[in-house]
């Protein structure tokens, strides 16, 4: 599809003062003067041999470029989901337990707000408040885990909080709905009739039986996070896969675009597979 849009990587590579001959020479050196089916066949042949090709711009293997961006993206996605799970599931369970009460209504209000507020707006508000006014966190940048756990966490926590808000809203809402449905089941009445403590009823009986839809939402969230955090990565200057993808699209770096899309597809399938397999553990009635 991208090949159908206007945009010539050779012209971009050549720079502002290049002439038509120089651009044509670069186009030929990149193999872009060949027909599209020929280019695709060559690329496919390389992929089958484990080669994603070389970036037009960076003269580096696409696998190497993706490798450089994995850690920031996985770290951001991982911490975001961790925060989201730790915050949203208890909130969702409590909201279901106190269905119709002030807490439930407040959570639903927060949920709507969380869905509605653009990530960059939230990011700028948090940066202004937490970084510039209070000075607790840096305003930008990423530190690799190899540079030390504290700098790593210190740089990552604000972007993760920013990004987690929408997932907290989403997971809390699904958790609430699922737990609410479970709380209406006969086995909950039986558990309460047996005199089990309410916490045990909520966690061991209601939440456990509501886990499948929650796990599904978390899984989809992880898959989306891997490739879809470009705004957060831009505002916080995190060199992740999202930025790599957008830069590659803007620069018409076709090998990189094809490589990352293939990688995202792989991650998406992998995460869905893991989630599907997890159903067996979450709900023993499910058999494959």
């Amino acid at each position, binding site marked *: 599809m991208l090949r159908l*849009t206007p945009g*010539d990587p050779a012209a971009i*590579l050549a720079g502002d003062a290049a002439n*038509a001959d120089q651009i044509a*020479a670069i186009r030929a050196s990149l193999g872009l003067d060949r027909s599209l089916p020929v280019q695709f066949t060559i690329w496919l042949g390389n992929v089958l041999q484990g080669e994603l090709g070389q970036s037009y711009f960076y*003269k580096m293997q696409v696998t190497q470029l993706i490798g*450089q961006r994995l850690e920031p993206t996985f770290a951001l996605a991982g911490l975001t989901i961790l925060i989201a799970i730790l915050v949203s599931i208890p909130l969702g369970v409590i909201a279901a337990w106190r269905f119709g009460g002030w807490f439930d209504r407040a959570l639903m209000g927060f949920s709507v707000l969380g869905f509605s507020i653009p990530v960059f707006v939230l990011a700028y508000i948090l940066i202004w408040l937490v970084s510039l006014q209070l000075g607790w966190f840096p305003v930008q940048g990423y530190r690799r885990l190899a540079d030390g756990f504290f700098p790593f966490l210190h740089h990552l926590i604000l972007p993760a909080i920013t990004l987690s808000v929408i997932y907290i809203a989403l997971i809390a809402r699904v958790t609430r709905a699922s737990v609410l449905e479970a709380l209406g089941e006969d086995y909950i009445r039986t558990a309460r009739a047996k005199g089990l403590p309410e916490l045990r009823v909520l966690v061991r009986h209601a939440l456990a039986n509501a886990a499948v839809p929650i796990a599904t939402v978390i899984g989809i969230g992880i898959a989306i996070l891997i490739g879809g955090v470009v705004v957060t990565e831009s505002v916080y200057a995190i*060199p992740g896969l999202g930025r790599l993808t957008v830069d590659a699209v803007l620069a018409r770096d076709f090998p990189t675009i094809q490589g990352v899309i293939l990688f995202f597809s792989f991650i998406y399938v992998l995460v869905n597979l893991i989630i599907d397999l997890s159903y067996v553990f979450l709900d023993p009635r499910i058999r494959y």
Partner: protein
Amino acid sequence: MRRRILAVLALMCFSIVHAQDKVLRVVPHSNLSILDPIWTTQFMARNHGYMIYDTLFGTDEKNQVKPQMVDNWTVSPDKRLWTFTLRPGLEFHDGKPVTGEDVIASLERWGKRDAMGQKLMTFVERMDTPQPNTFRIFLREACGIMLEALGKPSSNVPFIMPKRVAETPADKQIEEHIGSGPYIFKRDEFKPGDKAVYVRNPKYMPRKEAPSGTTGGKNVYVERVEWNLALRDAQAQVNALAKGEVDILERPAFESYEQLKKADGVVLVNKDPLGFQYMGRFNHLHPPFNNAKVRQAAIAAMQQEPFLRAQVGVKEFYKACPSMYTCGTPYGTAKGSDIQSKSNMRKAQELLKASGYDGTPVVILKPTDLAAIQKLPDVAAQLLRQAGFKVDLQAMDWNTVVSRRAKKDPPAQGGWNIFLTAWLAPDVWSPLTNAALGAAGEKSWFGWPSDEQIEKLRDQFARETDDAKRKAIAEQIQVRAFEIGTHAPLGEYVNPYAVRKNITGLVTGSGDTYWNVRKN
């Protein structure tokens, strides 16, 4: 025991803080993707080149060409033999001495890529190295551009590379990145889109003269320069500078200056007083701009002030300039510019009526993602509509503009009529560096004007060795360029750096260079 631990911790903290003082953290104006400054004309590649390579000559802040790697040189009476001697002690980062052979290989490669280099090479009969530290250039006939070309400050700069690197075919990118410049490139730490790192070259021998432009002593006072390539959001850049997480913003957005002026610990430094020139370029191949009279009507309509006011906005940062060369430089002149500088909308309307314009829509390419020029097309569209043109303003990302402007197809088939851009002063200050003044038809820069007279004059300019006569020829070129409407100059502006107050020593002159900078 506890005191000892505290003392060790305090020492560690001091060491970390001290180490940070020696790291200059720069937010460049763009991403660094290509590491070969000869293969591409991208400014970021040029800036990378200035970090790690040195040049034979440089251009100071007063536009004077001065020796850099060259110690001394002689010219034969007939001006056909130039003999250059290199400074003693010049060394590449791998410890090998810089020789005449390295210089010749570098010049040969540059001469195949750069427009001015190509022009110079048309005069060159041969080059040789009578001694390791000497090289000679034999010319077929005398020319007036030797030093100007070798001291050229902007893309493509004739950087000197080791012979084995410079022997890379000109149409292929180099794989090894070592020079003899003031910094060493840390290839192992380069992460595209994230950061580029340079460390001080301890063996570099700076000249004794004070630094100015790309000339003089390239003294290095920091241990390490880190280019933050990930920080590209304009507001995030301002926040990072205000909080002291970075030291220098190369090109803040114009909208950010008010905030930056008020930020604690931040100062604005106008290190490049000549700045940039905006330009509107016509496509001479297709209607309506294949008609010189229509182009003149458009130039008359495109008054500079509205462009500057809309795009830059900060009065002290811009000025109208009637010249196609940079105002305030040797060839800057108002000659021939009356069609634009003394025009008005009524005159533009009259010119358009007289031109026989048939209402063909004018396709203007508008980049939506390049803050430095994104408002110019809107102004052009409005002014041209007022003059009587039918306008088709097409929005796209900058890289699509870059791709489309290279297409010679008619506008209805994916071509174009006008695009707008900005040039650094050295890129337009001479008839040979100013790509828009090339008029060799389809071989010239995008827009492809064709005019024998201009080409003849440019050739005369290259051959002429007398400065006064060169200036006269440059004026004639500009007069003719306005007559045929090669392009419309749209005024000049500066884009000061925003830096932390503890950063001093930024060298005045065109380009983004980081020698002489101190972090106090």
